[in-house]
Protein backbone atom coordinates (compact mmCIF):
# COMPACT_ATOMS: atom_id res chain seq x y z
CA UNK A 1 0.00 0.00 0.00
CA UNK A 2 1.45 3.36 -0.95
CA UNK A 3 2.17 6.02 1.63
CA UNK A 4 0.42 9.34 2.01
CA UNK A 5 2.20 12.29 0.42
CA UNK A 6 3.12 15.49 2.31
CA UNK A 7 0.01 17.26 1.03
CA UNK A 8 -2.19 14.46 2.36
CA UNK A 9 -0.45 14.62 5.74
CA UNK A 10 -0.93 18.41 5.89
CA UNK A 11 -4.63 17.94 5.16
CA UNK A 12 -4.78 15.23 7.80
CA UNK A 13 -3.12 17.48 10.40
CA UNK A 14 -5.54 20.35 9.75
CA UNK A 15 -8.44 17.92 9.86
CA UNK A 16 -7.39 16.52 13.23
CA UNK A 17 -6.95 20.07 14.58
CA UNK A 18 -10.47 20.89 13.37
CA UNK A 19 -11.88 17.80 15.08
CA UNK A 20 -10.05 18.32 18.37
CA UNK A 21 -10.01 22.13 18.74
CA UNK A 22 -13.46 22.60 20.30
CA UNK A 23 -12.92 19.70 22.69
CA UNK A 24 -9.47 20.90 23.72
CA UNK A 25 -10.61 24.48 24.24
CA UNK A 26 -13.36 23.32 26.62
CA UNK A 27 -10.85 21.30 28.62
CA UNK A 28 -8.33 24.18 28.71
CA UNK A 29 -10.82 26.86 29.76
CA UNK A 30 -12.00 24.54 32.54
CA UNK A 31 -8.59 24.97 34.20
CA UNK A 32 -8.62 28.77 34.17
CA UNK A 33 -7.75 30.45 37.48
CA UNK A 34 -9.79 33.52 36.45
CA UNK A 35 -13.41 34.22 37.33
CA UNK A 36 -14.37 34.60 33.67
CA UNK A 37 -13.97 32.65 30.41
CA UNK A 38 -10.32 32.68 29.41
CA UNK A 39 -7.56 30.37 28.32
CA UNK A 40 -5.28 29.72 31.30
CA UNK A 41 -2.14 31.76 30.69
CA UNK A 42 -1.03 32.27 34.31
CA UNK A 43 -0.97 28.65 35.44
CA UNK A 44 -3.71 26.13 35.97
CA UNK A 45 -6.30 26.01 38.67
CA UNK A 46 -8.85 23.46 39.81
CA UNK A 47 -11.15 26.09 41.31
CA UNK A 48 -13.90 25.53 38.74
CA UNK A 49 -13.84 21.78 39.31
CA UNK A 50 -14.20 22.40 43.05
CA UNK A 51 -17.02 24.82 42.24
CA UNK A 52 -19.09 21.95 40.76
CA UNK A 53 -19.53 20.61 44.30
CA UNK A 54 -21.37 23.80 45.23
CA UNK A 55 -23.98 23.25 42.53
CA UNK A 56 -26.02 20.25 43.66
CA UNK A 57 -28.16 20.42 40.51
CA UNK A 58 -25.20 19.28 38.38
CA UNK A 59 -24.35 16.46 40.80
CA UNK A 60 -27.97 15.42 40.96
CA UNK A 61 -28.32 15.56 37.18
CA UNK A 62 -25.23 13.36 36.83
CA UNK A 63 -26.79 10.65 39.03
CA UNK A 64 -30.09 10.88 37.15
CA UNK A 65 -28.24 10.44 33.84
CA UNK A 66 -26.19 7.54 35.17
CA UNK A 67 -29.19 5.64 36.55
CA UNK A 68 -31.36 6.43 33.58
CA UNK A 69 -28.69 5.26 31.11
CA UNK A 70 -27.88 2.07 32.99
CA UNK A 71 -31.47 0.97 33.60
CA UNK A 72 -32.89 2.07 30.22
CA UNK A 73 -30.10 0.22 28.37
CA UNK A 74 -30.64 -2.88 30.49
CA UNK A 75 -34.38 -2.92 29.74
CA UNK A 76 -33.68 -2.22 26.05
CA UNK A 77 -31.22 -5.15 25.95
CA UNK A 78 -33.81 -7.41 27.61
CA UNK A 79 -36.34 -6.51 24.90
CA UNK A 80 -33.70 -6.71 22.17
CA UNK A 81 -32.47 -10.26 22.79
CA UNK A 82 -35.72 -12.10 21.90
CA UNK A 83 -36.44 -9.67 19.06
CA UNK A 84 -32.95 -10.17 17.63
CA UNK A 85 -33.24 -13.96 17.85
CA UNK A 86 -36.58 -13.80 16.04
CA UNK A 87 -35.25 -11.57 13.25
CA UNK A 88 -31.96 -13.44 12.90
CA UNK A 89 -33.38 -16.96 12.78
CA UNK A 90 -36.90 -16.91 11.49
CA UNK A 91 -38.22 -15.89 8.13
CA UNK A 92 -41.77 -14.73 8.50
CA UNK A 93 -44.11 -12.29 6.87
CA UNK A 94 -43.52 -8.73 7.98
CA UNK A 95 -39.98 -9.45 9.16
CA UNK A 96 -38.52 -6.53 7.19
CA UNK A 97 -41.30 -4.23 8.39
CA UNK A 98 -40.71 -5.30 11.96
CA UNK A 99 -37.00 -4.56 11.89
CA UNK A 100 -37.76 -1.24 10.19
CA UNK A 101 -40.15 -0.42 13.05
CA UNK A 102 -37.59 -1.40 15.67
CA UNK A 103 -34.91 0.77 14.03
CA UNK A 104 -37.30 3.68 13.42
CA UNK A 105 -36.13 5.73 16.44
CA UNK A 106 -32.90 6.25 14.48
CA UNK A 107 -34.80 7.82 11.63
CA UNK A 108 -37.44 9.84 13.43
CA UNK A 109 -35.97 13.19 14.49
CA UNK A 110 -35.57 13.27 18.25
CA UNK A 111 -37.42 16.55 18.43
CA UNK A 112 -40.48 14.76 16.97
CA UNK A 113 -40.07 11.89 19.43
CA UNK A 114 -39.77 14.37 22.29
CA UNK A 115 -42.99 16.08 21.27
CA UNK A 116 -44.81 12.76 20.77
CA UNK A 117 -43.68 11.48 24.18
CA UNK A 118 -44.59 14.76 25.89
CA UNK A 119 -48.09 14.63 24.40
CA UNK A 120 -48.46 10.92 25.21
CA UNK A 121 -47.27 11.18 28.81
CA UNK A 122 -49.31 14.32 29.46
CA UNK A 123 -52.43 12.51 28.27
CA UNK A 124 -51.65 9.44 30.38
CA UNK A 125 -50.75 11.46 33.48
CA UNK A 126 -47.12 10.29 33.60
CA UNK A 127 -45.65 13.61 32.50
CA UNK A 128 -42.72 14.83 34.59
CA UNK A 129 -42.03 11.46 36.22
CA UNK A 130 -38.94 9.26 36.12
CA UNK A 131 -40.83 6.26 34.64
CA UNK A 132 -41.85 8.43 31.69
CA UNK A 133 -38.22 9.42 31.11
CA UNK A 134 -37.20 5.78 31.45
CA UNK A 135 -39.74 4.46 28.92
CA UNK A 136 -38.75 7.17 26.43
CA UNK A 137 -35.05 6.32 26.79
CA UNK A 138 -35.69 2.58 26.41
CA UNK A 139 -37.31 3.26 23.03
CA UNK A 140 -34.62 5.67 21.84
CA UNK A 141 -31.68 3.39 22.69
CA UNK A 142 -33.43 0.18 21.59
CA UNK A 143 -32.05 0.26 17.99
CA UNK A 144 -28.48 0.38 19.28
CA UNK A 145 -29.03 -2.60 21.58
CA UNK A 146 -30.87 -4.46 18.82
CA UNK A 147 -28.30 -3.95 16.06
CA UNK A 148 -25.34 -5.29 17.99
CA UNK A 149 -27.34 -8.19 19.43
CA UNK A 150 -28.61 -8.96 15.94
CA UNK A 151 -25.07 -9.00 14.56
CA UNK A 152 -24.04 -11.47 17.26
CA UNK A 153 -27.12 -13.68 16.75
CA UNK A 154 -26.70 -13.74 12.95
CA UNK A 155 -23.04 -14.71 13.12
CA UNK A 156 -23.53 -17.42 15.75
CA UNK A 157 -22.49 -21.01 15.14
CA UNK A 158 -25.73 -22.98 15.39
CA UNK A 159 -24.06 -26.40 15.60
CA UNK A 160 -23.29 -25.90 19.31
CA UNK A 161 -27.02 -25.44 19.95
CA UNK A 162 -27.85 -28.55 17.98
CA UNK A 163 -25.31 -30.48 20.04
CA UNK A 164 -26.94 -29.23 23.24
CA UNK A 165 -30.39 -30.24 22.00
CA UNK A 166 -29.15 -33.69 21.00
CA UNK A 167 -27.79 -34.07 24.54
CA UNK A 168 -31.28 -33.39 25.89
CA UNK A 169 -31.17 -29.69 26.84
CA UNK A 170 -34.59 -28.10 27.25
CA UNK A 171 -35.37 -24.82 25.51
CA UNK A 172 -34.78 -22.67 28.61
CA UNK A 173 -31.53 -24.47 29.46
CA UNK A 174 -30.50 -24.13 25.83
CA UNK A 175 -31.07 -20.39 25.94
CA UNK A 176 -29.48 -19.81 29.34
CA UNK A 177 -26.46 -22.11 29.04
CA UNK A 178 -25.69 -22.01 25.32
CA UNK A 179 -27.36 -19.26 23.26
CA UNK A 180 -27.09 -16.35 25.70
CA UNK A 181 -23.40 -16.93 26.54
CA UNK A 182 -22.61 -17.09 22.82
CA UNK A 183 -24.32 -13.81 21.97
CA UNK A 184 -23.32 -12.10 25.23
CA UNK A 185 -20.43 -10.03 23.77
CA UNK A 186 -22.89 -8.51 21.28
CA UNK A 187 -25.47 -7.90 24.01
CA UNK A 188 -22.92 -6.22 26.27
CA UNK A 189 -21.48 -3.98 23.55
CA UNK A 190 -25.08 -3.14 22.57
CA UNK A 191 -25.78 -2.23 26.18
CA UNK A 192 -22.65 -0.07 26.34
CA UNK A 193 -23.48 1.81 23.16
CA UNK A 194 -27.10 2.23 24.31
CA UNK A 195 -25.84 3.59 27.63
CA UNK A 196 -23.67 6.20 25.92
CA UNK A 197 -26.55 7.23 23.66
CA UNK A 198 -28.87 7.60 26.64
CA UNK A 199 -26.24 9.47 28.67
CA UNK A 200 -25.78 12.01 25.84
CA UNK A 201 -29.39 12.37 24.69
CA UNK A 202 -30.56 15.97 24.85
CA UNK A 203 -33.11 16.80 22.15
CA UNK A 204 -35.83 14.37 23.22
CA UNK A 205 -35.10 14.53 26.95
CA UNK A 206 -35.37 18.31 27.07
CA UNK A 207 -39.10 17.92 26.44
CA UNK A 208 -39.60 15.44 29.27
CA UNK A 209 -37.21 16.63 31.96
CA UNK A 210 -38.75 18.30 34.98
CA UNK A 211 -37.07 19.79 38.05
CA UNK A 212 -35.50 16.95 40.02
CA UNK A 213 -35.29 14.59 37.04
CA UNK A 214 -33.13 16.68 34.74
CA UNK A 215 -30.37 14.73 33.03
CA UNK A 216 -26.86 16.12 32.81
CA UNK A 217 -27.07 17.23 29.13
CA UNK A 218 -30.38 18.97 29.85
CA UNK A 219 -28.96 20.72 32.91
CA UNK A 220 -25.89 21.81 30.91
CA UNK A 221 -28.04 22.99 28.01
CA UNK A 222 -30.38 25.03 30.21
CA UNK A 223 -27.38 26.51 32.03
CA UNK A 224 -25.72 27.53 28.74
CA UNK A 225 -28.98 29.15 27.60
CA UNK A 226 -28.66 31.60 30.51
CA UNK A 227 -24.92 32.23 30.48
CA UNK A 228 -21.65 30.60 29.57
CA UNK A 229 -19.11 30.69 32.38
CA UNK A 230 -16.11 28.55 33.39
CA UNK A 231 -18.33 26.35 35.57
CA UNK A 232 -20.07 24.78 32.60
CA UNK A 233 -16.68 24.19 30.96
CA UNK A 234 -15.43 22.27 33.99
CA UNK A 235 -18.63 20.19 34.01
CA UNK A 236 -18.16 19.54 30.26
CA UNK A 237 -14.51 18.66 30.78
CA UNK A 238 -15.52 16.10 33.41
CA UNK A 239 -18.09 14.60 31.03
CA UNK A 240 -15.48 14.47 28.26
CA UNK A 241 -13.02 12.73 30.60
CA UNK A 242 -15.57 10.08 31.58
CA UNK A 243 -16.54 9.54 27.92
CA UNK A 244 -12.89 9.20 26.87
CA UNK A 245 -12.42 6.51 29.48
CA UNK A 246 -15.51 4.62 28.29
CA UNK A 247 -14.31 5.08 24.71
CA UNK A 248 -10.89 3.57 25.32
CA UNK A 249 -12.46 0.62 27.15
CA UNK A 250 -15.01 0.10 24.36
CA UNK A 251 -12.27 0.25 21.72
CA UNK A 252 -10.03 -2.18 23.62
CA UNK A 253 -12.75 -4.79 24.04
CA UNK A 254 -14.89 -4.47 20.94
CA UNK A 255 -13.22 -2.19 18.38
CA UNK A 256 -14.75 1.23 18.02
CA UNK A 257 -15.35 1.15 14.27
CA UNK A 258 -17.26 -2.14 14.60
CA UNK A 259 -19.39 -0.88 17.48
CA UNK A 260 -20.22 2.40 15.77
CA UNK A 261 -21.06 0.85 12.41
CA UNK A 262 -23.27 -1.78 13.99
CA UNK A 263 -21.06 -4.83 13.54
CA UNK A 264 -20.31 -6.01 17.04
CA UNK A 265 -18.55 -9.11 15.81
CA UNK A 266 -14.86 -8.42 16.22
CA UNK A 267 -12.76 -11.27 17.51
CA UNK A 268 -14.32 -13.87 15.31
Amino acid sequence: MSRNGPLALLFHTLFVIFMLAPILVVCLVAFTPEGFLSLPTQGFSLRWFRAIARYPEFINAFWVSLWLGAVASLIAAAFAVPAALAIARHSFRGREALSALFLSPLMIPHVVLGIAFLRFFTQTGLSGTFPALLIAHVVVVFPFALRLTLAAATGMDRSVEMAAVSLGAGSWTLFRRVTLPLILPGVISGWALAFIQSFDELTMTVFLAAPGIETLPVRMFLYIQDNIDPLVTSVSASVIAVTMLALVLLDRFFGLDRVLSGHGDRGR
Partner: protein
Amino acid sequence: MTAASSAPQPAPVTAAPAAPAPAAGGAGTGTPWPLVLPALMLFVAVVLIPLAMTVLLSFNDWGQYKGIEQVFILKNWREIWEDDYFLEMFLRTFRIAVLATLITALLGAPEAYILNRMQGRWKGFFLLVILGPLLISVVARTLGWALLFGGANGVVNKALMSLGVIGAPIPFMFTETGVVVALAHVMMPFMVLSVWAALQRVDPQIENAAMSLGAGHATILRRIVLPQIMPGILSGAIIVFSLSASAFATPSIIGGRRLKVAATLAYDEFLNTLNWPLGAAVAVLLLVALVLIVVGSNALIERRYAEVFR
Protein backbone atom coordinates in the same frame (compact mmCIF):
# COMPACT_ATOMS: atom_id res chain seq x y z
CA MET B 1 -7.47 -5.34 10.04
CA THR B 2 -9.45 -8.17 8.44
CA ALA B 3 -11.82 -5.87 6.75
CA ALA B 4 -13.22 -7.46 3.63
CA SER B 5 -16.69 -7.74 5.08
CA SER B 6 -19.10 -9.38 2.71
CA ALA B 7 -22.46 -7.81 3.47
CA PRO B 8 -22.99 -4.14 2.75
CA GLN B 9 -22.41 -2.39 6.02
CA PRO B 10 -25.62 -0.81 7.23
CA ALA B 11 -25.07 2.86 7.71
CA PRO B 12 -24.99 3.78 11.39
CA VAL B 13 -28.01 5.99 11.61
CA THR B 14 -29.78 5.64 8.33
CA ALA B 15 -33.21 4.49 7.36
CA ALA B 16 -33.92 0.91 8.27
CA PRO B 17 -31.29 -1.17 6.53
CA ALA B 18 -32.51 -4.49 5.25
CA ALA B 19 -32.35 -7.15 7.93
CA PRO B 20 -29.70 -9.79 7.38
CA ALA B 21 -30.94 -13.01 5.87
CA PRO B 22 -31.91 -15.54 8.51
CA ALA B 23 -29.23 -18.10 9.26
CA ALA B 24 -29.80 -21.39 7.54
CA GLY B 25 -30.59 -24.47 9.52
CA GLY B 26 -33.45 -24.73 11.97
CA ALA B 27 -34.95 -21.42 10.88
CA GLY B 28 -38.66 -21.35 11.49
CA THR B 29 -41.10 -20.05 8.94
CA GLY B 30 -44.04 -18.99 11.16
CA THR B 31 -43.97 -15.70 13.03
CA PRO B 32 -42.20 -16.35 16.36
CA TRP B 33 -44.76 -14.40 18.37
CA PRO B 34 -43.39 -15.09 21.86
CA LEU B 35 -40.04 -13.60 20.82
CA VAL B 36 -41.41 -10.68 18.88
CA LEU B 37 -44.37 -9.66 21.00
CA PRO B 38 -42.70 -7.85 23.93
CA ALA B 39 -40.77 -5.39 21.76
CA LEU B 40 -43.64 -5.07 19.29
CA MET B 41 -46.10 -4.14 22.04
CA LEU B 42 -43.64 -1.63 23.45
CA PHE B 43 -43.23 0.02 20.07
CA VAL B 44 -46.94 0.13 19.28
CA ALA B 45 -47.74 1.59 22.69
CA VAL B 46 -44.88 4.06 23.00
CA VAL B 47 -43.95 4.95 19.40
CA LEU B 48 -46.87 4.47 17.03
CA ILE B 49 -49.63 5.69 19.36
CA PRO B 50 -47.75 8.84 20.50
CA LEU B 51 -46.87 9.65 16.87
CA ALA B 52 -50.52 9.28 15.88
CA MET B 53 -51.49 11.51 18.81
CA THR B 54 -49.00 14.13 17.61
CA VAL B 55 -50.47 14.10 14.11
CA LEU B 56 -53.95 14.55 15.60
CA LEU B 57 -52.65 17.31 17.87
CA SER B 58 -51.52 19.28 14.84
CA PHE B 59 -55.19 19.54 13.77
CA ASN B 60 -56.35 20.85 17.16
CA ASP B 61 -57.13 24.47 17.95
CA TRP B 62 -55.26 26.61 20.45
CA GLY B 63 -55.84 29.97 22.06
CA GLN B 64 -53.88 31.97 24.57
CA TYR B 65 -56.60 31.65 27.19
CA LYS B 66 -58.59 28.59 26.19
CA GLY B 67 -55.56 26.32 25.73
CA ILE B 68 -55.80 23.27 23.48
CA GLU B 69 -59.22 22.55 22.03
CA GLN B 70 -59.74 19.02 20.72
CA VAL B 71 -61.31 19.82 17.38
CA PHE B 72 -60.30 18.88 13.86
CA ILE B 73 -59.39 22.01 11.91
CA LEU B 74 -56.69 22.99 9.43
CA LYS B 75 -55.80 26.26 11.19
CA ASN B 76 -52.18 25.37 12.04
CA TRP B 77 -51.49 23.88 8.63
CA ARG B 78 -52.97 26.93 6.92
CA GLU B 79 -50.84 29.19 9.12
CA ILE B 80 -47.67 27.30 8.16
CA TRP B 81 -48.68 27.36 4.49
CA GLU B 82 -49.58 31.06 4.37
CA ASP B 83 -47.09 32.69 6.74
CA ASP B 84 -43.75 33.31 4.97
CA TYR B 85 -42.02 33.08 8.34
CA PHE B 86 -42.35 29.28 8.25
CA LEU B 87 -41.20 29.03 4.64
CA GLU B 88 -38.14 31.09 5.48
CA MET B 89 -37.48 28.97 8.58
CA PHE B 90 -37.73 25.66 6.69
CA LEU B 91 -35.55 27.02 3.86
CA ARG B 92 -32.95 28.05 6.45
CA THR B 93 -33.14 24.61 8.09
CA PHE B 94 -32.52 22.78 4.82
CA ARG B 95 -29.91 25.29 3.61
CA ILE B 96 -27.90 24.75 6.80
CA ALA B 97 -28.29 20.97 6.46
CA VAL B 98 -27.18 20.97 2.79
CA LEU B 99 -24.11 23.11 3.52
CA ALA B 100 -23.12 21.00 6.53
CA THR B 101 -23.51 17.87 4.37
CA LEU B 102 -21.33 19.33 1.59
CA ILE B 103 -18.58 20.27 4.04
CA THR B 104 -18.55 16.84 5.68
CA ALA B 105 -18.41 15.17 2.24
CA LEU B 106 -15.63 17.41 0.90
CA LEU B 107 -13.48 17.04 4.02
CA GLY B 108 -14.56 13.69 5.43
CA ALA B 109 -14.17 11.58 2.28
CA PRO B 110 -10.53 12.57 1.61
CA GLU B 111 -9.74 12.14 5.29
CA ALA B 112 -11.20 8.62 5.32
CA TYR B 113 -9.06 7.80 2.28
CA ILE B 114 -5.93 9.18 3.93
CA LEU B 115 -6.73 7.30 7.15
CA ASN B 116 -7.13 4.07 5.22
CA ARG B 117 -3.63 4.44 3.72
CA MET B 118 -1.96 4.89 7.10
CA GLN B 119 0.12 2.23 8.84
CA GLY B 120 -1.68 -0.03 11.32
CA ARG B 121 -1.01 1.68 14.65
CA TRP B 122 -1.53 5.22 13.38
CA LYS B 123 -4.66 4.15 11.56
CA GLY B 124 -6.22 2.82 14.75
CA PHE B 125 -5.14 5.83 16.78
CA PHE B 126 -6.48 8.47 14.39
CA LEU B 127 -9.67 6.52 13.79
CA LEU B 128 -10.24 6.72 17.55
CA VAL B 129 -9.43 10.45 17.54
CA ILE B 130 -11.83 11.19 14.69
CA LEU B 131 -14.70 8.85 15.57
CA GLY B 132 -14.38 9.42 19.31
CA PRO B 133 -16.10 12.83 19.32
CA LEU B 134 -19.26 11.04 18.16
CA LEU B 135 -19.70 9.75 21.67
CA ILE B 136 -18.82 13.02 23.42
CA SER B 137 -21.83 15.05 24.53
CA VAL B 138 -23.12 17.31 21.74
CA VAL B 139 -23.60 20.06 24.30
CA ALA B 140 -19.90 19.91 25.27
CA ARG B 141 -18.77 19.92 21.62
CA THR B 142 -21.01 22.85 20.73
CA LEU B 143 -19.88 24.70 23.84
CA GLY B 144 -16.34 24.33 22.47
CA TRP B 145 -17.38 26.10 19.27
CA ALA B 146 -19.14 28.82 21.23
CA LEU B 147 -15.84 29.40 23.07
CA LEU B 148 -13.81 29.34 19.84
CA PHE B 149 -16.19 31.72 18.04
CA GLY B 150 -16.83 33.98 21.06
CA GLY B 151 -17.30 37.53 19.83
CA ALA B 152 -15.30 39.46 17.23
CA ASN B 153 -11.95 38.53 18.79
CA GLY B 154 -12.61 34.82 19.20
CA VAL B 155 -9.82 32.31 18.71
CA VAL B 156 -10.98 31.26 15.24
CA ASN B 157 -11.05 34.82 13.91
CA LYS B 158 -7.63 35.60 15.43
CA ALA B 159 -6.14 32.46 13.88
CA LEU B 160 -7.69 33.08 10.45
CA MET B 161 -6.61 36.74 10.46
CA SER B 162 -3.03 36.00 11.55
CA LEU B 163 -2.82 33.41 8.76
CA GLY B 164 -4.07 36.07 6.35
CA VAL B 165 -7.07 33.99 5.28
CA ILE B 166 -9.49 36.79 6.13
CA GLY B 167 -9.06 40.54 6.50
CA ALA B 168 -11.79 41.33 8.98
CA PRO B 169 -13.37 39.12 11.64
CA ILE B 170 -16.29 36.99 10.43
CA PRO B 171 -19.29 36.97 12.75
CA PHE B 172 -19.80 33.31 13.73
CA MET B 173 -21.98 33.49 16.82
CA PHE B 174 -25.70 33.83 16.07
CA THR B 175 -25.13 33.37 12.32
CA GLU B 176 -25.81 30.60 9.84
CA THR B 177 -22.06 30.40 9.11
CA GLY B 178 -21.34 29.50 12.70
CA VAL B 179 -24.15 26.94 12.86
CA VAL B 180 -22.94 25.30 9.64
CA VAL B 181 -19.31 25.05 10.85
CA ALA B 182 -20.29 23.63 14.25
CA LEU B 183 -22.81 21.21 12.70
CA ALA B 184 -20.25 20.02 10.16
CA HIS B 185 -17.93 19.25 13.07
CA VAL B 186 -20.63 17.43 15.03
CA MET B 187 -21.66 15.32 11.99
CA MET B 188 -18.17 14.68 10.55
CA PRO B 189 -17.62 11.29 12.26
CA PHE B 190 -20.73 9.89 10.52
CA MET B 191 -19.30 10.77 7.11
CA VAL B 192 -15.82 9.46 7.87
CA LEU B 193 -17.33 6.25 9.24
CA SER B 194 -19.52 5.74 6.19
CA VAL B 195 -16.72 6.34 3.66
CA TRP B 196 -14.39 4.25 5.80
CA ALA B 197 -16.84 1.34 5.63
CA ALA B 198 -17.00 1.70 1.82
CA LEU B 199 -13.19 1.78 1.60
CA GLN B 200 -12.95 -1.53 3.47
CA ARG B 201 -14.71 -3.19 0.53
CA VAL B 202 -12.30 -1.76 -2.05
CA ASP B 203 -9.64 -4.15 -3.30
CA PRO B 204 -6.30 -2.27 -3.13
CA GLN B 205 -5.02 -4.41 -6.01
CA ILE B 206 -7.30 -2.49 -8.39
CA GLU B 207 -5.34 0.69 -7.63
CA ASN B 208 -2.07 -1.16 -8.21
CA ALA B 209 -3.41 -2.58 -11.46
CA ALA B 210 -4.35 0.92 -12.63
CA MET B 211 -0.92 2.20 -11.69
CA SER B 212 0.82 -0.61 -13.56
CA LEU B 213 -1.24 0.30 -16.60
CA GLY B 214 0.18 3.81 -16.38
CA ALA B 215 -2.58 5.76 -14.66
CA GLY B 216 -1.45 8.85 -12.78
CA HIS B 217 -2.42 9.53 -9.18
CA ALA B 218 -5.20 11.96 -10.09
CA THR B 219 -6.64 9.52 -12.60
CA ILE B 220 -6.62 6.70 -10.06
CA LEU B 221 -8.46 8.87 -7.53
CA ARG B 222 -11.01 10.06 -10.05
CA ARG B 223 -11.60 6.88 -12.06
CA ILE B 224 -10.86 4.07 -9.56
CA VAL B 225 -11.29 5.24 -5.97
CA LEU B 226 -14.08 7.80 -6.21
CA PRO B 227 -16.58 5.59 -8.06
CA GLN B 228 -16.03 2.81 -5.55
CA ILE B 229 -16.52 4.95 -2.44
CA MET B 230 -19.38 7.00 -3.92
CA PRO B 231 -22.08 4.81 -2.29
CA GLY B 232 -20.36 5.40 1.05
CA ILE B 233 -20.26 9.16 0.50
CA LEU B 234 -23.92 9.22 -0.53
CA SER B 235 -25.19 7.12 2.36
CA GLY B 236 -23.07 9.23 4.71
CA ALA B 237 -24.60 12.33 3.13
CA ILE B 238 -28.12 11.04 3.82
CA ILE B 239 -27.29 10.45 7.49
CA VAL B 240 -25.59 13.83 7.90
CA PHE B 241 -28.37 15.67 6.08
CA SER B 242 -31.22 14.15 8.06
CA LEU B 243 -29.46 14.61 11.39
CA SER B 244 -28.49 18.20 10.51
CA ALA B 245 -31.98 19.14 9.40
CA SER B 246 -33.40 17.96 12.71
CA ALA B 247 -30.49 19.14 14.89
CA PHE B 248 -31.45 20.97 18.05
CA ALA B 249 -28.54 21.60 20.43
CA THR B 250 -26.10 23.16 17.96
CA PRO B 251 -28.50 25.61 16.23
CA SER B 252 -29.91 26.49 19.62
CA ILE B 253 -26.56 27.30 21.29
CA ILE B 254 -24.71 28.81 18.29
CA GLY B 255 -27.74 30.27 16.51
CA GLY B 256 -29.29 31.79 19.60
CA ARG B 257 -32.91 32.76 19.99
CA ARG B 258 -33.34 34.66 16.75
CA LEU B 259 -31.90 32.20 14.22
CA LYS B 260 -34.66 29.59 14.34
CA VAL B 261 -34.58 26.22 12.63
CA ALA B 262 -37.37 23.64 12.59
CA ALA B 263 -36.33 21.82 15.77
CA THR B 264 -35.75 24.96 17.84
CA LEU B 265 -38.99 26.52 16.60
CA ALA B 266 -40.98 23.44 17.60
CA TYR B 267 -39.26 23.50 21.00
CA ASP B 268 -40.20 27.16 21.43
CA GLU B 269 -43.83 26.57 20.53
CA PHE B 270 -44.02 23.73 23.04
CA LEU B 271 -42.14 25.05 26.03
CA ASN B 272 -42.31 28.85 25.71
CA THR B 273 -45.36 29.90 23.69
CA LEU B 274 -47.23 26.76 24.78
CA ASN B 275 -48.95 26.57 21.37
CA TRP B 276 -48.66 22.79 21.21
CA PRO B 277 -50.83 22.24 18.09
CA LEU B 278 -48.68 24.61 16.00
CA GLY B 279 -45.48 23.06 17.36
CA ALA B 280 -46.85 19.61 16.54
CA ALA B 281 -47.63 20.72 12.97
CA VAL B 282 -44.04 22.00 12.51
CA ALA B 283 -42.66 18.72 13.89
CA VAL B 284 -44.93 16.55 11.72
CA LEU B 285 -43.97 18.56 8.63
CA LEU B 286 -40.27 18.11 9.46
CA LEU B 287 -40.78 14.37 9.91
CA VAL B 288 -42.71 13.96 6.65
CA ALA B 289 -40.21 16.05 4.67
CA LEU B 290 -37.27 14.08 6.04
CA VAL B 291 -38.87 10.69 5.48
CA LEU B 292 -39.67 11.63 1.86
CA ILE B 293 -36.15 12.94 1.22
CA VAL B 294 -34.38 10.02 2.91
CA VAL B 295 -36.53 7.26 1.41
CA GLY B 296 -36.39 8.92 -2.01
CA SER B 297 -32.63 9.34 -2.08
CA ASN B 298 -32.08 5.85 -0.63
CA ALA B 299 -34.11 4.39 -3.48
CA LEU B 300 -32.17 6.46 -6.05
CA ILE B 301 -28.82 5.39 -4.63
CA GLU B 302 -29.76 1.74 -4.45
CA ARG B 303 -30.97 1.79 -8.06
CA ARG B 304 -27.85 3.61 -9.26
CA TYR B 305 -25.44 1.42 -7.30
CA ALA B 306 -27.44 -1.81 -7.31
CA GLU B 307 -24.37 -3.90 -8.08
CA VAL B 308 -22.51 -2.52 -5.05
CA PHE B 309 -25.30 -3.31 -2.65
CA ARG B 310 -25.92 -6.80 -3.97
